[in-house]
């Protein structure tokens, strides 16, 4: 139990600044781009908050934070487990009668699932807040008008789905990293290879899973 909290601190708290920073910039870009498209299609900015909020909640918030989490946490996990494998610490655990999967993987898995959920929630809310600030400054929306116009498009269930997506992405990261870590070949190159592979495979899996989840959730709207 204590392990889970230590991992949760590593996964969530230490990744928070980077993720929030990136998500703020993503919000600014989303507003600029959706204002560009709206001008093209309907000639005014009236629907910008709604579309930007939809794009953020259903897509960008969860995926961007998950991909950042992969490069930070996934690479770290694979390197850690891989080094334990090649220095025979995992065999030592087995000798002591401790199940390495239970000891190493389970706390990280649980922490990443909870962390993915929480990070997705925080990232989405901060991203929306930033989008509101930007549209106040750039498109001269008042915050009230932004929220009213946003509420016409997004509902609470969008936020719930975004958090569920975050939790699913969080589950992918430790599974892939620990798999590659446990199969790590000996030597420093083996660890490097395991790290690179785990980052690539989990990023691709996140995008594919995002597609599957989007498809699945689209039946509930």
């Amino acid at each position, binding site marked *: 139990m204590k392990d889970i909290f230590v991992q949760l601190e590593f996964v969530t708290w230490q990744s928070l600044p*980077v993720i929030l*920073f*990136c998500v703020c*910039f*993503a919000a*600014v*870009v*989303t507003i*600029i*781009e959706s204002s*560009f*498209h709206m001008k*093209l*299609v309907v000639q005014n900015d009236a629907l910008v908050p709604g*579309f930007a909020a*939809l*794009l953020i909640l*259903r*897509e*960008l918030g969860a*995926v*961007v934070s998950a*991909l*950042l989490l*992969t*490069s*930070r946490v996934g*690479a*770290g996990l694979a*390197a850690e487990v891989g*080094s334990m494998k090649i220095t025979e610490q995992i065999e030592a655990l087995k000798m002591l009668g401790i199940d390495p999967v239970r000891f190493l993987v389970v706390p990280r898995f649980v922490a990443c699932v909870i962390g993915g959920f929480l990070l997705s929630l925080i990232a989405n809310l901060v991203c929306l807040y930033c989008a509101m600030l930007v549209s106040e400054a750039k498109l001269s929306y008042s915050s009230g008008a932004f929220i009213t116009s946003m509420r016409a*498009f997004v509902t609470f269930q969008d936020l719930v789905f975004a958090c569920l997506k975050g939790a699913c992405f969080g589950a992918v990261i430790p599974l892939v990293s620990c798999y590659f870590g446990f199969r790590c070949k000996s030597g*420093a*190159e083996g*660890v*490097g*290879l395991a*790290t*690179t592979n785990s*980052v*690539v495979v989990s*990023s*691709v899996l996140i*995008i*594919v899973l*995002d*597609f599957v989840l*989007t*498809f699945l959730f*689209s039946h509930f*709207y």
Partner: protein
Amino acid sequence: MLKPLLNVIDDIGECLIFLRLILRTAYRSPCTWESICEQTWKVSVQSTPTTALAGFFVGAIMTVQFTMQTKAFGALGYLGGLSTSATVREVGPLLIAFLLSGKVGAYTSAELGTMRVTEQIDAIRCLGANPIQEIILPRFLGIVISSFFLLAAGLIMSIFGGMLMGSVFSGINPEEYVRHIPTIVTQFSIGNGLFKCLVFALILASVCTYKGYSATGGAKGVGRAVVGTAVMTMVGIVVFDWFTSLLSETALNLFREGV
């Protein structure tokens, strides 16, 4: 609180100084064409399947998302144009560049970092050759060239992905989907997307060569360099995504006022 911030600024500054060093070497003592082509070929072959797959799925995701929204307005005809425009201008370059930074960036910085900590780079210097010219410059140029084309290929794949999902999920046949692309996607949008690809390729190449070249302290240092590369590239990509969007918007406004 202040120390991590200072470290970040230090990192950015050193990366820029390293970039200047690379460019100066490229100007004064350029490397051979063969070495650049070799690196370009290596990177392209390694990463084409990943990028193509990612591009395909990004396009498919955007189509599914836009279907729900355009259906609500009864404007399903705009689907092809809207989702292609959003993918090419914004989401496509961003997500595919994220994947490339995991693939190309991590591989290159691990390779260079291993060379560094096993003192192969010092050995090259001992032999009287310039390691920047011999090792870094071909990789830098190779990554820039191949990432740019890989990103562009990913964008093309995303159109195919969107087309497929358009006919499977939202019942729009491919001809209809493609017919509406030129009504919304202008040459300017495509230029904007390609400009983004070029900027992301430059960021990726300079960060991963810098981090790999400056790795210190054994296998652990290589691991640190790899993680540092991935994080720094992604943050750089997001920041410059904003910057290029702002730039293109300003350019577009100037253009409109001019006409």
